[in-house]
């Protein structure tokens, strides 16, 4: 077991090194990525500033919290793209490229994730997000308690892992459906909910986006916890327990989908 884990850890480190090397050689990609993240960040901030030019507050959310929400969204997405291999899995299934991973003495799921790892992009995105959060805290004079920051980021990680496993299960549908681009697109549309405060939505939608597809966990609730919102802190444990259950559920769903899909996989491609 330890040898097995060590083998995969070595592979993981190797792909990370490769990723860094690529960015060292093609530094223009790094510049391009950085400009992309800064552009998206500026657009988010400009949007909320424009809205708050016309209104003073939206419920309990003021411009400071919403700017921090934008930053937290980038942190969440940066963690999510660490597992980008799941997103590209349908293409590999359709084109018969899974053989590359199935024929190796490695866990194919781990190999798929590691081979598509984009650590530099993930770190850039997360750093940009944390910089926005820190800048907002300084500019708007919001006191940050480290314990709240840890809890908020912990919930964010939990929510992201649920979304990653959900993504994996969706991608496994390619074993049966072939092209999953539009289903994926619909799933991606839900990402739009990340950028605004889900606690302001009607209760049904709020429940769905917190406890079924936990978009609220990758930006809204981490933001509220980081700023020390009492109501959010009070329900943290409840949310965490339900999300752990969801994590288990989607882990089982993905495992079953992968096993069933691999049994019918025929690497004909096309």
């Amino acid at each position, binding site marked *: 077991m330890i040898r097995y884990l060590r083998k995969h850890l070595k592979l993981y480190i190797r792909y990370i090194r490769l990723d860094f090397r690529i960015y060292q050689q093609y530094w223009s990609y790094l510049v391009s990525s950085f*400009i*992309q993240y800064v552009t998206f960040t500026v657009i988010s901030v*400009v949007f909320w500033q424009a809205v708050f*030019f*016309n*209104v003073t507050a939206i419920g309990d959310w003021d411009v400071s919290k919403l700017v921090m929400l934008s930053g937290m969204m980038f942190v969440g997405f940066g963690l999510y793209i660490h597992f980008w291999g799941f997103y590209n899995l349908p293409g590999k299934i359709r084109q018969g490229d899974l053989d590359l991973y199935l024929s190796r003495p490695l866990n194919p799921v781990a190999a798929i994730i590691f081979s598509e790892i984009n650590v530099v992009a993930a770190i850039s995105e997360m750093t940009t997000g944390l910089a926005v959060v820190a800048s907002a805290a300084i500019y708007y004079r919001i006191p940050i308690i480290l314990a709240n920051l840890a809890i908020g980021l912990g919930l964010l990680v939990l929510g992201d892992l649920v979304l990653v496993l959900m993504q994996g299960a969706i991608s496994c549908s390619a074993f049966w459906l072939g*092209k999953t681009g*539009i*289903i994926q697109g619909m799933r991606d549309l839900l990402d739009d909910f990340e950028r605004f405060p889900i606690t302001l939505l*009607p209760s049904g939608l709020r429940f769905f986006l917190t406890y079924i597809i936990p978009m609220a966990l990758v930006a809204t609730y981490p933001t509220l916890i980081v700023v020390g919102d009492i109501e959010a802190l009070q329900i943290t444990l409840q949310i965490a327990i339900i999300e752990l259950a969801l994590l288990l559920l989607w882990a089982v769903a993905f495992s079953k989908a992968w096993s069933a899909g691999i049994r019918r996989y025929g690497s004909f491609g096309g």
Partner: protein
Amino acid sequence: MRAYQLDFLSSVIYLPVEMGVVYFLWFVIYSYSGQIIIGGLSFGDVVVYYLLQRIANRIVGRGFVVREVGEDIRKGNLSIYLCRPVDYPTYKLFSVLSYTTVNLLAGVAIFVVVSASLSLWIQLDPLYWASFIVSILLGLIIYYSFTLCIGLLAFWTEETGTLLILVDGITHAFSGSMIPLTMYPAAIYQVVSFLPFRYIYFSPLLIYLGKMSANECIAEIAIQSTYVALLLIGSRMILRSGLKRYDAQGG
């Protein structure tokens, strides 16, 4: 289509799902602000605005012209078009139009269905409809010409990906795609009004919403036409200048 039935079915409900996000966002903003009018628009106006904007986005397209033109130049594929009796910019424009035609048909159908189901206000004046259609097509050509100019910079720079990101960002912020421009502070709105980006989405959408008088509509369309002419002339000049240094080595 039959091979990917779920794909086709999903594409039919793609836009309304996207609109759901926008609808809830602005419902929340208007509800909690306590204001009926924000930036000269009511909640109903904003919903129609964004619904039409999402449809117009599929008509106007995204920055793929930058990417395609940049690749044609970098990989030497431009030579294929130079050898043929086709005008490259015109060819690109019509390839964009072919892409937008399908989306226009689907978009109109979805707009009618969603408007009817949500009891949204629909423009009934045929003159405003005609003005809107002319204006949105001019907006498409403005966006195409601008992205063509950016793509043609590949004659001088190897990397147009970063430019594409900046173009998308600027267009998103200043065309009315992200937020109606009247919601910006007055000083910013004044500056943005002089840029061509507002004529891509914002002007056509305001025309549809009936927020302009007939004379103002004519003035907007005249300004759009001027920008179209300037940008098309600019793209021609860039192309002519770039072809002098073009050398189809590819790679």
